[in-house]
């Protein structure tokens, strides 16, 4: 079992550009959550996908959007990049949406740098 995988590992973009990050969940998991982790900070919840729909959203602007595919993999899209979007983007998967009862497994993250 490869666990949660994310691609790419690192990415450098310029302000105003758009970026797509990808996540494959752990085998058997059907729910994907995305987090933004700024340097020296804890992860901040962006949104959660289940059954190809966004189920919960954190305090992030509409520039952040996502998608979940029938095979449960997911994409995070960020439009009109700002310098402040530079961070480690973490994907976590679980079986079911209730994080109180279903352990989340995190991927290694994608390091996004916006210049």
């Amino acid at each position, binding site marked *: 079992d490869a666990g949660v995988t994310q691609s790419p590992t690192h990415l450098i973009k310029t302000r105003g550009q758009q970026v797509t990050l990808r996540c494959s969940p752990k085998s058997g998991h059907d*729910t994907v959550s995305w987090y933004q982790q700024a340097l*020296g900070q*804890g*992860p901040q919840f962006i949104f959660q996908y289940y059954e190809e729909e966004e189920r919960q959203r954190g305090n992030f602007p509409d520039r952040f959007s996502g998608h979940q595919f029938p095979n449960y993999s997911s994409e995070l899209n960020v439009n009109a990049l700002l310098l402040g979007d530079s961070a480690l983007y*973490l994907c976590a998967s679980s079986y079911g949406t*209730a*994080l109180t009862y279903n352990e989340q*497994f995190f*991927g290694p993250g994608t390091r996004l740098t916006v210049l």
Partner: protein
Amino acid sequence: QQQVKQSPQSLIVQKGGISIINCAYENTAFDYFPWYQQFPGKGPALLIAIRPDVSEKKEGRFTISFNKSAKQFSLHIMDSQPGDSATYFCAASKSNDMRFGAGTRLTVKP
């Protein structure tokens, strides 16, 4: 909108010592309180977790103490080892929403 406050930011402990990290939360609706361990270049990994119906949970060298009335919980690492050197995050969750603390960088000196 920080809902989980964590302290200290950094901690240095001698090998064999006790490491203590504290967290406080605001929302009484939270019903699950995990601790995550993160090594450089890796995603966070669940270390230990507690629900508010118990006051303490122990797994090996790791113990969570939970004070519901004070809305505080803490992680104790007994007999700290150099391999425990990592960043530790507390979190609080309700349903499908999880909020993390800012993290504590632990260094265990040999």
